[in-house]
C-alpha cells in the first residue's frame, strides 16, 4: 500500500477512546481486538484513518459501526498480513533437519498454519513437505481471521517481483530443486502449482475466540503472537497445546517464545534460536 504523505499529521489515537471503539466492534461484529498489543493497534488505526482522510476517532467509529465493508478493510489493516516465503531461512533449515524425519514416522500428517495471512508460509511448508515426500500423506489446515488475505492464500497468486528474494530464501532454507518449477509465471504474477494445493484446506478461524478443531502433528504460528497481549498469548499457547498430539511440534516466530506462558514446562526445545518446540506432556 502507498506510504502516507510524510507531511500529513497522523491522527493521535487516544487510548481510552480506542479501547471503547474496540469493545464496540467486538459487540457488533464479534471481531475481538481488545487483547491486541496497543501500540501496534494504535499505529494501524492511525494509518487506516490517514489513508481515508478520517480526522477523528468519532468519525472512524461512525464509519466502522455502520458500514460492514469498511470494517472488513479495517480488519485487513489492523491484522498485520506482511509475510514472505521461507521467511527466516534458518528456521526452515532447522525444520528440515530436526523435524521432518520425526514427521516421516507418522502414517499421515495434520499440519496447522495458524494466522496464515496471504499464505506464503503455507506454500513454504507444502514445498518443504513435498521435498521430504510427505505432502501426499499430509493435510495442511491454513486459518486466519482475515477473509481477504485468505482468498489470496487460496489462489496462491503472488507478484513475480517477489520471486527473486523468495528463491534466495528457498535456497538458504536447504531447498534443492529449481524453485521456479513450483509455479507458473503469467502477466507479472506467478501462480503456485495445483499439486501443492491438493492437500491444503483454508478456512476462517479466530485464535482469540475459536476453539481447537483437530489434533495436529505440527503447528506453525509465526509472528502472530507478537501482536497479542500477554494474557492472550498465554491462552493461545494453551490452545496450541490442546491441539497438538504428544510429541507434536510447535513453531513460533524468531522473536516469540514460551517463556512467559503457563505451558512452557509442557514443551521441550528442539531448536532454541529457531523457536521450534515439542510437546512432551
Amino acid at each position: 500500500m502507498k506510504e502516507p504523505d510524510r507531511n500529513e499529521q497522523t491522527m493521535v489515537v487516544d487510548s481510552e477512546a480506542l479501547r471503547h471503539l474496540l469493545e464496540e466492534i467486538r459487540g457488533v461484529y464479534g471481531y475481538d481486538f481488545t487483547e491486541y498489543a496497543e501500540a501496534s493497534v494504535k499505529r494501524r488505526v492511525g494509518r487506516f484513518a490517514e489513508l481515508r482522510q478520517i480526522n477523528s476517532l468519532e468519525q472512524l467509529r461512525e464509519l466502522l459501526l455502520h458500514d460492514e465493508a469498511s470494517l472488513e478493510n479495517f480488519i485487513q489493516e489492523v491484522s498485520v498480513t506482511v509475510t514472505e516465503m521461507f521467511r527466516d531461512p534458518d528456521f526452515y533449515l532447522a525444520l528440515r533437519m530436526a523435524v521432518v524425519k520425526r514427521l516421516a514416522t507418522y502414517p499421515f500428517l495434520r499440519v496447522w498454519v495458524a494466522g496464515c495471512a496471504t499464505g506464503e508460509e503455507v506454500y513454504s511448508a507444502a514445498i518443504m513437505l513435498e521435498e521430504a515426500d510427505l505432502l501426499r500423506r499430509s493435510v495442511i489446515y491454513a486459518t486466519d481471521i482475515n477473509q481477504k488475505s485468505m482468498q489470496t492464500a487460496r489462489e496462491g497468486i503472488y507478484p513475480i517481483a517477489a520471486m527473486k528474494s523468495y528463491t534466495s530464501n528457498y535456497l538458504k532454507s536447504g531447498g534443492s530443486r529449481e524453485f521456479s518449477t513450483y509455479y507458473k509465471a503469467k502477466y507479472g504474477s506467478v501462480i503456485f502449482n495445483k499439486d501443492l494445493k491438493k492437500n491444503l484446506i483454508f478456512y476462517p478461524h479466530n485464535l482469540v475466540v475459536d476453539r481447537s478443531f483437530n489434533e495436529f502433528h505440527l503447528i506453525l504460528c509465526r509472528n502472530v503472537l507478537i501482536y497479542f497481549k500477554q494474557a492472550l498469548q498465554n491462552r493461545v499457547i494453551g490452545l496450541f497445546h490442546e491441539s497438538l498430539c504428544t510429541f507434536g511440534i510447535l513453531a513460533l516466530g524468531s522473536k516469540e517464545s514460551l517463556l512467559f506462558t503457563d505451558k512452557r514446562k509442557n514443551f521441550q526445545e528442539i531448536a532454541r534460536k529457531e523457536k521450534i518446540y515439542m510437546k512432551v506432556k
Partner: protein
Amino acid sequence: MSERGKYAGIFIGSSAGGLAALSAIFSQLPEIFSLPIVVVQHRAKGNRDLLEEILAGKSALRIEQASEKEAIRAGCIYLAPPDYHLLIEEDMTFSLSSAEPVVHSRPSIDVLFESAALALGRRLVGVVLTGASPDGSKGITAIRRSGGLTVVQDPEEAEYAAMPRAAIATGNVDKILPVQGIAEFLRGLHA
C-alpha cells in the same frame, strides 16, 4: 531550570554512520544512569552484524536487544532487533511488529518515536543521528507535538547529513549539537 527528572526515556535513531556516533555517545555515559535508552539503528536482516556486541565493548551501560513484552529498565541501552519494528507500550514494555517497512526501513525510527511519543507524552527525549534516509523526521515531529524534547546531530559533522537535515527541516528540533555535545547533554539528564 534543571532538566533532571523530567524524562522517562531517551530514544535514538541512527542509520549510515551510526555505529561510530553511537559508540562515541555511549562511551561517555556513566556506569549508573537513571534513564533507559532505546535505539533504532538501521541494520540488515539475516546476517549477524554483532551490533550489540560491538557497542557493549564501548559502554559501561548494559546493552541488550529489545525483546517483546520486556519491561524497560533504567540504566539499560536497548537496540531494536533486525527485521522488526520496535514499539513502546504505555506500561513501559516493548512490542515488536513485522508490519511493512516504513520509509524502506524495518526497524523504523518513525515507528519507535511515534509510539514512544504516544506512550510517554512529554516525558521523552528524541535524538536523530547520522544517516542517509529521511526516517526519523516524522517521529521527531510526533515527539515535539507530544511535548517531548528533540535533539539532532549537527549535519556539518555527521558522517551522513541527510537524516539530520530532514529532521531539522521539519522545524521541530530543539537542539542541534555535535556528537560530543549530545553525549554531554544526555549525561546531564541523569537524575
